[in-house]
């Protein structure tokens, strides 16, 4: 008889997604341990406690905590979902853009600059409106739609004077006149599990900002684009966010590596938590074979 797998789940808060994942683990009789990222520590001379895990599922809310934990675990040979390499790419918008560009995946037109003056030049080249985004961040926070030069100068000055060092990298994106919605596709390995429209009257359509969900049929185009995008960032459990660009068609806006699915699961009727657990077990078994 094969030894029972031991799964670690690294988390910060028990959101509804973690409740569903824990319930799925319990339903499947999986031996799992809850690892609160505020309470754990790593002794770099003692990997043994961590090597008792056949796989660790990373669900930290803090990007930094999750990323560094994954780096330690992967350095010790502990399989993780996702890997540190995937988190490094997906947690940073510019790195994601670079990987998508390398793979020829269509995406919005983006520019990057390292000083407010150069950023203003880049913005003026675009024309208005444009969108300024933080390199790291989520839930639609700190996005700025810049409608004119006055606003550009003000926001750039505020970012450079008040922001952390990361805000001195200016990630500038064309403003896309999307049809009041974007698309979130849930990827499990090499499968597009389900997709939903996220609808909002606001230009930010994130469901963390009260965007509403509606089922989106997975067309061959969506499937092919998602597979290509997931492959470009290293694959795994991913949420690929697509935007319907009026000129370019579907483009990949961002890819999330610790996806929330509080809308996608009830809207789609797909038990995403079950699929996540199945994938995590599959990764552990593949690593052990």
């Amino acid at each position, binding site marked *: 008889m094969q030894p029972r797998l031991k799964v670690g789940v690294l*988390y*910060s*808060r*028990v*959101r509804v997604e*973690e*409740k569903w994942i*824990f319930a799925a683990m319990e339903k499947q009789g999986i031996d799992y341990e*809850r690892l*609160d990222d505020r309470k754990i520590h790593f002794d770099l001379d003692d990997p043994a406690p961590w090597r008792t895990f056949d796989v660790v599922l990373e669900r930290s*809310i*803090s*990007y*930094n905590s999750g990323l560094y934990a994954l780096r330690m675990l992967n350095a010790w040979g502990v399989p993780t979902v996702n890997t540190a390499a995937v988190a490094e790419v997906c947690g940073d918008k510019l790195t994601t853009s670079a990987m998508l560009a390398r793979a020829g995946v269509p995406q919005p037109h983006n520019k990057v600059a390292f000083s407010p003056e150069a950023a203003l030049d880049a913005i003026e080249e675009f024309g208005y409106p444009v969108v300024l985004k*933080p390199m*790291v*961040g*989520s*839930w639609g*926070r*700190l996005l700025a739609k810049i409608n004119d030069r006055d606003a550009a100068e003000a926001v750039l000055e505020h970012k450079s004077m008040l922001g*952390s060092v990361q805000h001195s990298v200016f990630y500038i994106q064309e403003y896309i006149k999307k049809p009041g919605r974007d698309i979130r596709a849930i990827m499990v390995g090499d499968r597009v599990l389900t997709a939903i429209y996220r609808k909002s009257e606001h230009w930010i359509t994130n469901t963390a900002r009260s965007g509403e969900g509606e089922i989106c049929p997975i067309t061959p185009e969506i499937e092919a684009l998602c597979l290509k995008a997931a492959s470009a960032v290293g694959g795994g459990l991913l*949420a690929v966010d697509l935007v319907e660009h009026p000129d370019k068609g579907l483009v990949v806006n961002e890819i*999330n*590596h*610790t*996806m*929330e699915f509080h809308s996608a699961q009830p809207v789609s009727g797909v038990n995403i938590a079950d699929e996540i657990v199945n994938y995590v077990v599959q990764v552990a078994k593949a690593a052990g074979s």
Partner: protein
Amino acid sequence: MTTVSCPECAADITLDEGTEVNEIIVCSDCGVDLEVTSLNPATVELAPMEEEDWGE
């Protein structure tokens, strides 16, 4: 039925069936985010403030 007191406004809050440790609940009186820190006995604390690198 388990009841806790909001550390911000002292309102009585009833925990739903199936509430988990580390789950975030919202005080229905003052709207503050609270983290459930234990279930037996039931305790809550003010939830940590959202950090810049939080997200998905």
